[in-house]
């Protein structure tokens, strides 16, 4: 049950190995609403906290396709329909000459969707987040590794969850206020 005023329990570890091991233990114990925080990307950690579908490639593909189609259609419309000019007898629809701008627009749109898509899917910018209420969390961007069980987890209980996290032998445990 979700307890008013609590966002979850947070355990602190001092190595990526112990964090990944703890994340696996938490999954095996049946917790589903969990997350982990680390100062650098750790291979396999996202999967260990139950993250399996990364939508980023699809976002970037769609962005790139839109960019490419926009680029080519823009040139076609401008050079063939809106204001056709005969330049040295070249056809209005001189497609080989249009490839470069099409290519650049593909890259531009795909790149912008990669950045904006990553930020949007991650819910950033988010200036306030309950995890920042834990003073030791400032070390999550330096040399400490954190695991959190959210209070929204159906299996969450303020006593059981705390006891379970203690069994993982973390450096410290903190209750995260909401």
């Amino acid at each position, binding site marked *: 049950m979700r307890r008013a005023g609590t966002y979850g329990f947070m355990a602190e570890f001092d190595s990526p190995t112990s964090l990944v091991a703890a994340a696996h233990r938490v999954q095996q114990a049946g917790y589903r609403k969990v997350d982990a925080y680390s100062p650098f990307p750790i291979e396999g*950690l*996202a999967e260990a906290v139950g993250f399996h579908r990364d939508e980023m490639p699809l976002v970037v593909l769609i962005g*790139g396709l839109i960019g490419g189609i926009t680029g080519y259609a*823009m040139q076609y419309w401008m050079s063939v329909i809106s*204001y056709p000019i005969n*330049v040295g007898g070249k056809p209005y629809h001189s497609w080989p000459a249009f490839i470069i701008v099409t290519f*650049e627009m593909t890259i531009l749109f795909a*790149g912008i969707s990669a*950045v904006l898509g990553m930020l949007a899917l991650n819910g950033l910018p988010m200036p306030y987040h309950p995890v920042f209420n834990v003073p030791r969390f400032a070390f999550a*961007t330096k040399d400490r590794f954190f695991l959190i069980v959210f209070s929204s987890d159906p299996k969450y209980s303020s006593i059981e969850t705390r006891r379970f996290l203690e069994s993982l032998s973390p450096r410290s445990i903190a209750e995260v206020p909401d």
Partner: protein
Amino acid sequence: MDERTEPVTAERERAPVIEPGYTFGSVTDKISSIVLTRPTSNGWFFGFGLAFLLTMMMLYAIGYLCVRGTGIWGVTIPIGWGFAIVNFVWWIGIGHAGTLISAILLLLRQSWRNSINRFAEAMTLFAVASAGIFPLIHVGRPWLAYWLFPYPNTMKVWPQFRSPLIWDVFAVSTYATISLLFWFIGLIPDLATLRDRSTNHASRIIYGILAMGWRGSARHWHRYETAYLLLAGLATPLVLSVHTVVSFDFAIGIVPGWHTTIFPPYFVAGAIYSGFAMVLMLSIPIRKIFQLEDFITERHLQNSAKVMLATGLIVAYGYIIEGFMGWYSGNRYDGFTLWNRLHGPYAFFYYMLLICNIVIPQVLWIPRLRSSPIWLFLVSGVVLVGMWLERFIIVVVSLHRDFLTSSWGMYYPTRWDWMTYIGTIGMFLAAMFLFVRVLPMISIFEMRTLLPEAEVKE
């Protein structure tokens, strides 16, 4: 034999990417303290002040240009391109090494890049900014430069998409945008580190806003890494396309000396060549001044030197093919261009180019010199001069004597040309000075991944 015998050399070639003994915490502290706690030295103020003065000189020259027009420059017919295009190509080429280091070496899993990618990307940004000034002021009426973009206007005309010059507008503006995004996305986790480490209230807020609430969640990291990798995959063909398109500005024209298919690969190689020279010229003083020899080790210097050596040889191949085609094509104008380079009024600069770009850099074959910061610094300076001369030869020497002897001419840069050129170097350096002062010049989170503890043990 002294200590420079073969085994020692082999040992030197295996210099570590990061010296042993560092932890996540000490790497973080070492890099972030340069920004957060290190007092701003007098040397920094002096260097920044000098660079700032040069920037002001550039603005003065550009202001005067706006008042008087391009007549204050040395450009005349037949040499309508002059310094503006020489400097544009030189600067944009320098930028290419940053993208090569950050994107291509990432895809090739060259983890040594992690120590130098951040400031190489910053170098790219500032070099592209310096490059971008030149075509804008070269159009003659810079306040109308937005005409280059396709936008609905009262004249109801659109850009000419069959022209390489408009391709250049798209290539360079895309390159600038993607470089900025790539650089910024790489900075986000480090900005969060600075936010959490900073003791000063104002800087906490500023870094906090820029970090956008980054908290290092595993889900975020996963999307972040995917986005970063995809951006690298996009930036790789992009960077190759940019200098290819720049070379099209020349190669699509029928001017002898320009109209050749060797231009795209030879331009890209030349760009990376000059870019690595600039990376070395920046990293050698930076690692010394900020005591970062543990992170930017001999390994980085050696690898950069090897890239320079390889791309320099590709450039040399380009020169050879240019000479060969001048003879083999049987085209009298191409043949004359070759003769004119070797014996014409600008022959001195062509020989200087061969010495700077081909002869002197061959000293990098000697392993001992590849590990010597002083030698690398000097050779890099020579290469930068040589690559500038190459663009001068391509632009000026090809244009000044083309088909009709009646329309031959000479090009003499004026003081305004020099003030603008040297001014952009000042602007570039001023931006670098600000960058090393307020942002982490080495990617902290990527350095953490290089430590042995970063590996998850089963």
